[in-house]
Structures are given as structure tokens and as C-alpha cells.
């Protein structure tokens, strides 16, 4: 008979972390299982579709066991929150676009393997910092390849943002997003002292200004290339916003922030004049009621879906979110709103805010190790900014930018890169 005092059972912090993560995963599992069962009942689906939940449950269990061994002192909240959102997203994708649910489950497995692979990396994240220019140029080459060879899985009419072989597509911009975060973190970590000096340097030379202007201009130029050549407003906006926040973080110069915002506005004006897609998005944002059946259809139907949800929601499988074109990707938040109501949508907001702000908290805790601190901040800012861009677009707070809602939206590349970012965050949390 075990005679140890009960309190001693929880003395081991690693056990406590595992237990907490386990409890949260079980709660997430109950929630997502209920969602799948309700969906089956509401839509009179075959019980066999529960295999999707089975994939999720195995991924959650496998991830938990692997992380318990590889990163025993990790933050216990990131993985359950991410799995909760992924499981929820899987149920919604199954509801609104069942033909994509299997593929999303496949990408969940791939993403989890990638996360486990990163978490088991023996050298952890040092190699990321060491080869930063390799990452940068790899990213730029990918971008160039996309401009030349890019395709759209849905056909030749949409933006060509994907590279693909044999029906398997991925979006290089997602990879580029991760590589840029790594590069910027490494670059700023190395030159942080320089950024702390006055803008014009101790001697007041104009060349000292270049250390600010050059990366800013480079990033702005890169974003404009993405915008003009690829017509990918979301990625361009996300890159520049993340970069600007990181530059402000490194320099602390309000002037840089104001200048950057000025550049965004300037680019917006130029794009409004020269890029029809941007002009259409801004026109729709300013007044969607002018043409609600055609040009503004997507945004107006998104607002209709939120309104239809009300406080309590229509119930899973019982709303009409499929009126929104590509609801399973860019507008999955509206599907949450319609079928889970205000309470469900606010839960998503809170959880995504939690991930972003906890990433920033990690950055504060890691200040003594600049690269790691910037990396945590970069991931937190990216998750936060990406979430706000698409949620704000779906709610007509800002012009619509086509990015995915992290972890919920359908999209293999997005899920994979988001899991890799969470993998890095988990490693960083282990080092606190």
C-alpha cells in the first residue's frame, strides 16, 4: 500500500505539466467528440465518419506522449489549446466541406510528425539562427519559383500561390512566413546593439540611417512583390505588419513605427490605384451594401452568418454557413459564429489571443537569450496578427485579406507551418 502523502504525488513539476496537459486534452477530446457526434446526428451522417475524430484523438495522444519525453518542462497550455482548435476546425470542415475533411486529417498527421520532429531536434533551435541567410535565400527562391511556376489547385482563374506535384499542393508563402520570422529574429538578435544607437549614429552620419531603412525597404519591397505579382494581399500585409512589429521591438523607435504605417498606407493607395483586387477589396469594405449579391457577396454572407448565429448559435450542422464561398478556409470563423453563436466565436477569439499573448509572455521570459526571445515574439505576433487580419476581414472591421485562421481553417501548408511554429514555441518554453 502506498503510504506517501498525497501532496508528494504532485511534487514532480514534470508530472504536473503532463497531467495538466493531459486533462486539457481530454476536455478538448470530449468537446470535439461531442461536436462530431452532434454533427452526425444533425446531418444524418454515417457513424463511420467518426474516424476523423479518431485521427485527432490519436494525434493528440501521440503528440502528448512524444512531447512528454522530448520536452518534459514545456508550457502545458500550448499543445492542448492548439489541438482543441484543430479538432474544432476539423469538425467544422467536415460539416461545411466534407470533401476536404480527409485531406485536413492527413495534414494533421503530417503536421504532428513535423512538430514531434522539431521537438526532438537534438540541437534544438541553434541551427536555425546559424544558417539564417540559407533560410532567407531559400524563402526568396521559393517565392521566385511560385511567381514562375505557381498554380491554383482550384483552377487557372484564382491567384497562383501554390506549388504542386501530383495533386499535392503547398503554399510557399507559408514556408516563407516561417523562414522570415527565423531570419528576422536572428538578424535583430545579432544587431540589437546597433539598433539601440541613435538613428543617425553617434557621429550623425546619414549612412547609419541605412541600418534601419535598408531592412525596412527590403521587406516593403518583398511585400509589394508578393502583392503585385502574386496578388496575395493577405500574405503581403501579414509579412509587413509582423516585420514592422519586430523592428519596433528591436529598435524601440516610434518614428520607425509611424514610418512603417505610412508605408502601409502609401502602398495601400498605390495598390488601390494599380491593383484591381485591392481596389475591389477596399470598395467592398467601404460599402458592401452597394452590391451584396455579387461583388460583396462573400463579406455580406459572412456578416449574415454571424447575425444568424446570435448568442447561442444555430447548432452544429443546423445553420447555413455554406452560402459563404470558401467558408472552410478564409471564412471558417463565420461558420463558427453561425453554428456556435457568439459564445463559440468569442471562445475562438480568446484562445487565439491566449496563444499570441502567451508567445509574447515567453519572449519576455527569454529576454536574456535574444534570438529565442525574438523568435517567441515573432511567432506570437504572427499568430496574433494573422488571426486579427482574417477575423477583422470576416467582420468588416478591415478590408478582407485572404489568410487562414490559424489551426481552424482548412489548409495543409498553413497547418504544417503553424504546428512548426508551435513546436518552436514549445522548445522555447522548455528553456525558460
Amino acid at each position, binding site marked *: 500500500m502506498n503510504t506517501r502523502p498525497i501532496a508528494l504525488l504532485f511534487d514532480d513539476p514534470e508530472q504536473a505539466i503532463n497531467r495538466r496537459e493531459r486533462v486539457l486534452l481530454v476536455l478538448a477530446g470530449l468537446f470535439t467528440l461531442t461536436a462530431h457526434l452532434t454533427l452526425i446526428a*444533425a*446531418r444524418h451522417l454515417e457513424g463511420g465518419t467518426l474516424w476523423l475524430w479518431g485521427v485527432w484523438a490519436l494525434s493528440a495522444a501521440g503528440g502528448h506522449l512524444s512531447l512528454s519525453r522530448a520536452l518534459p518542462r514545456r508550457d502545458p497550455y500550448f499543445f492542448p489549446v492548439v489541438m482543441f482548435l484543430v479538432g474544432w476546425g476539423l469538425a467544422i470542415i467536415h460539416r461545411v466541406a466534407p470533401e476536404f475533411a480527409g485531406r485536413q486529417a492527413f495534414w494533421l498527421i503530417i503536421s504532428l510528425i513535423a512538430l514531434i520532429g522539431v521537438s526532438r531536434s537534438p540541437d534544438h533551435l541553434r541551427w536555425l539562427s546559424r544558417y539564417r541567410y540559407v533560410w532567407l535565400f531559400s524563402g526568396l527562391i521559393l517565392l521566385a519559383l511560385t511567381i514562375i511556376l505557381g498554380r491554383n489547385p482550384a483552377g487557372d482563374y484564382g491567384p497562383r500561390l501554390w506549388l504542386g506535384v501530383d495533386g499535392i499542393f503547398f503554399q510557399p508563402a507559408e514556408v516563407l512566413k516561417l523562414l522570415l520570422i527565423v531570419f528576422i529574429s536572428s538578424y535583430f538578435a545579432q544587431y540589437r546593439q546597433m539598433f539601440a544607437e541613435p538613428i543617425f549614429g553617434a557621429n550623425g552620419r546619414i549612412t547609419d540611417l541605412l541600418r534601419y531603412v535598408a531592412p525596412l525597404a527590403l521587406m516593403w519591397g518583398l511585400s509589394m512583390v508578393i502583392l503585385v505579382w502574386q496578388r496575395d494581399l493577405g500574405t503581403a500585409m501579414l509579412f509587413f505588419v509582423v516585420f514592422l*512589429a519586430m523592428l*519596433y*521591438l528591436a529598435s*524601440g523607435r516610434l518614428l520607425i513605427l509611424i514610418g512603417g504605417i505610412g508605408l502601409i498606407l502609401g502602398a495601400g493607395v498605390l495598390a488601390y490605384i494599380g491593383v484591381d483586387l485591392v481596389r475591389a477589396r477596399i470598395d467592398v469594405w467601404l460599402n458592401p451594401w452597394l452590391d*451584396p*449579391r455579387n461583388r460583396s457577396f462573400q463579406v*455580406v*454572407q459572412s*456578416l*449574415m452568418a*454571424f*447575425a*444568424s*448565429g*446570435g*448568442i447561442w448559435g*444555430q*447548432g452544429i*450542422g*443546423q*445553420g*447555413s*454557413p*455554406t*452560402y459563404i464561398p470558401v467558408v472552410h478556409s478564409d471564412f471558417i470563423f463565420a461558420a463558427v*459564429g453561425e453554428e456556435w*453563436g*457568439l459564445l463559440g*466565436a*468569442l471562445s475562438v*477569439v*480568446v484562445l*487565439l*489571443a491566449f496563444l*499570441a*499573448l502567451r508567445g*509574447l*509572455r515567453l*519572449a*519576455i521570459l527569454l*529576454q536574456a537569450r535574444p534570438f529565442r*526571445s525574438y523568435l517567441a*515574439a515573432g511567432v506570437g*505576433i504572427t499568430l*496574433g*496578427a494573422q*488571426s*486579427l487580419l482574417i*477575423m*477583422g476581414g470576416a*467582420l*468588416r*472591421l478591415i478590408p478582407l485579406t485572404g489568410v487562414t485562421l490559424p489551426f481552424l481553417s482548412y489548409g495543409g501548408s498553413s497547418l504544417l507551418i503553424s504546428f512548426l511554429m508551435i513546436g518552436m514555441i514549445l522548445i522555447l518554453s522548455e528553456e525558460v
Partner: protein
Amino acid sequence: MSQRLNQIGTVLLIGFVGVALSLTYWMVWGRDALLAQSFNPRLVETERAIKRGTILDRQGEALIWSAAEGLSPSGMPNYRRISAVPAESFSALGYYSLTYGVGGLESVYDRELRGENALSPETRLLNTLLHHPQEGSSIRLTLYKTLQTQTYQAFKGRRGAAVVIEVPTGAVLALVSAPGFDAARLDLDFDRLEEDQNAPLLNRALQGVYQPGGMLQSALIAALLNTDPDGEFPVEQGDQPVKVNGLSLTCTVIPDQPPRTLLEAYVYGCPGAFTTLPSGILSPARLWQMVESFHLTTPPLIDRLEPLTRSAVTPWMNLTDPAQLQAELLGQGKLTLTPLQMALNTAIIANEGNAITPYMVSAIYPPTVNPQDYDGGETDPYRTSPPPAGEAVITREAADRVQAAMREGVLRGSAEGAQPSGSPEIQAHGAAGIAYTGKTAHAWFIGFATLPDGRKWVVSVVIEDSLNPASAAALARGIFEQAR
């Protein structure tokens, strides 16, 4: 650096709070206004998911019903309204369209057909929350399906209308408007139907207004006999043509001998005899009083169907031009009547001088019961209360004498040909004639048949663009033959 991280975190937090506030606005405060917009497809989807109740004929045969037609984009059932074949024969009952709304019976019984009458507010709320399918009540009509379709087909492409009403109950047995339209295809065909010169969208039975011509004489004769039940009302040269508005009106059937009395003139449809009425026998004021007591100036109501709004007619005693008064007495003036009014007018004569109240809905079955399990008879628990009997308009004696004249009209007068062949037990009564409307004319028949069981079928038929009253009488004969 932690200060800057906190600042960035605060900005992100403000962004998330902004999203939360925006959500609250659209999902709580701005919700109702947004959902009411016409471009909300959920409105249509919700509407199409309602299984409207079936409209049955008096024998329980389905006339109009909702049929499932696949699922909506979000998986809700999709119902479409279907009419029995030929669908055009039922268009006078109304229509249900997502684009053009509801009309006729479909409109006035909309709450019942949607099932909103059968549920308590609590049940409705619960059904809404649980997304239970909404099913409507079925309504049983007094119509005979076969009589309705065969009467419609008897028009053979001609324009016109027919109304058949049972006396003394007031049950409408057929309500036909020709040409009709397939209400299920209204959304697709509306533009074509609207431009069609035959005006199939017009419900001629209830809303078609026609000059009564010689048919008005039934009311005039009744008015005279009401004053003097034994009167003979001799006339001289009763078969002489009479000119009105440039037209020369003659007898519908040329008699072997000139009619000697006003009743004989009525039997043969000789209008000339009636031009002497005001000065000789009744004042225009008394005649107008009879016109009003026959409800010829106030369109009638069937169930809850809105009566037709028409411009007021100048009372005859206020007419100063004698030619105009003569035109009114001959049914060629400003007074116009619907086929339903003509049927009700005739029903007063058939019903021994008492008015009847027409009705079409005899029972309403909640969605929880199968209408086929009931017969709509007096023991049917879902039977609606029949309307009260109408007031006495003329004396029984007066009515009897007009009835006798109408019987003569079928045997040897204007309505010859209305008697069903080989069915002496069914005795047809009637009058037929022509009314001129500008460049064209239409043929009328009004009358009734007495059935062996004591009931009577009152019929009014109008055929547009026809100079042949016999065709209207023949159509009425087809209706009477259905009574066997």
C-alpha cells in the same frame, strides 16, 4: 524590451477586444436588421423548408400539395408546391411563390397552411431552437376535383369563368378561371404570363368584371314580382329590337309569337320589353333598391378572400340622361358584375328568395392528423363552422315565378340546351344572353339545377369574345351532368 513587448501585446489585445465587440454588434444588436435584408438566402431557405399543408377537395383528393425536392445548399429540405393535373384548372385557388408572394386561398389561409395556427408560442419557439421541420395544416375545400377540372377543360382554350355553388349550403363546388396557369411554375413563367394577352393571371371567377347584359333582367323581374307576386306585366311588341349605345339588341331566341308579358320576354331574352320599366311599373329608385338588395354593387366575400375593389356606380335615380338609364336597365351601362356575383344573384332565386353565404373551406386538419382518415362530413371533428344563412331578399312566391320562367328558358327559351340529356331527374333552369363590351361581346349563362335529393346547383358561366349564348348554356349542361 519587455516594455515594448507589453506594448505590442496591448495592441494585439486591443485588436482582439475590437473583434469581440464587433462580434457582439453583429450577433446581438445589428442582428435583426441584417437578417431581414432581402439578400439573406436563409430567408428563402427557411421558407422552402416549410412543408405547407395540402389543399384537398371535398372527397379528400389532393388538389395542391408540397413535394420534397432535394436539399438546400445547407442541407435543409426543399419543398415545392405542386397542383393536380391539369394544374391550370386550379389557378383560381391561388398561388404560392417565393418571388411573387402568396395569393388567393394560399394567401388567406397562409397561417394554417404554414402550420402556425396549430402550435402554441412555446412549441413554436422550441421547434425553432431544435430546428424541427415546420409542417402546415391541411385544408379541405368544398370543391369537387373532377367538376373543377372538367369545367376548366370545357372552355377548350376560350377565355371565361364558371362558378358552381350548392344551394342552400353555399358550398362552392367549382371555381374556374380560363385560361389558368400552373402555379408551381409561376416564378419561371411570370413574365410570359403577365404579357399574355389572354391575361391568365386574372382570376376571372372572382375578379373578372363583365357587363351583365340580359342577365340583369333576372333581378329586375324578381323586383317586379316582389312588388306584385301575381302580376302579369303585359308588354306590347316585346320582341322589338332596342338600340343602345349604337347597338341593336334583339331577343336571344326569336319566339314564334311576340311575348305578351314581361316574364315571356324574359324567357326568350327579349330586352326591348324591359326599357319601359321605370316609367310604367317601378321607379328607378325602387329598382336601384333591388339592385342593392341583390348585392350587385358590393362584391361578395368567399371565406376570407378580399372582395374586389371597384369604382362606385351612379345610382339609377340620379341618372339624368334617359339613354343612360336605358343602357343600365339593359345591363349595358356602368354596372359590371363578376361571375361569382352572378351566381349569388341566381342563388337568391334558387333558394326561395333567400341569399346564401358562399364558402370554400370546410375543414382544417392540424399537421398531426391524416386528413384521409376523415370525410369532412358533419361528424368530422375538424370541420369548420359553415357560414350563417343569408337574409331574405325577395318573397318565396316571387322566387317561384322567376324559377318557373327560368325553367321555361331552358325548355324553349334563351337557355335551351342547358338541360342534361337523359337525366330528367335533374331539372335545369336558366337564362342565357349576350352582353356587349365595346368592340367585343361575351356570352352568359346563369341558372341552376334541382337534384333529386333536394339540393340545387347554381351555375354562372361567362365566355369572352362569344356571340353565342348556346355555347355558355352547353357548358352549363356539362356542369349539370356532373351532378348525376
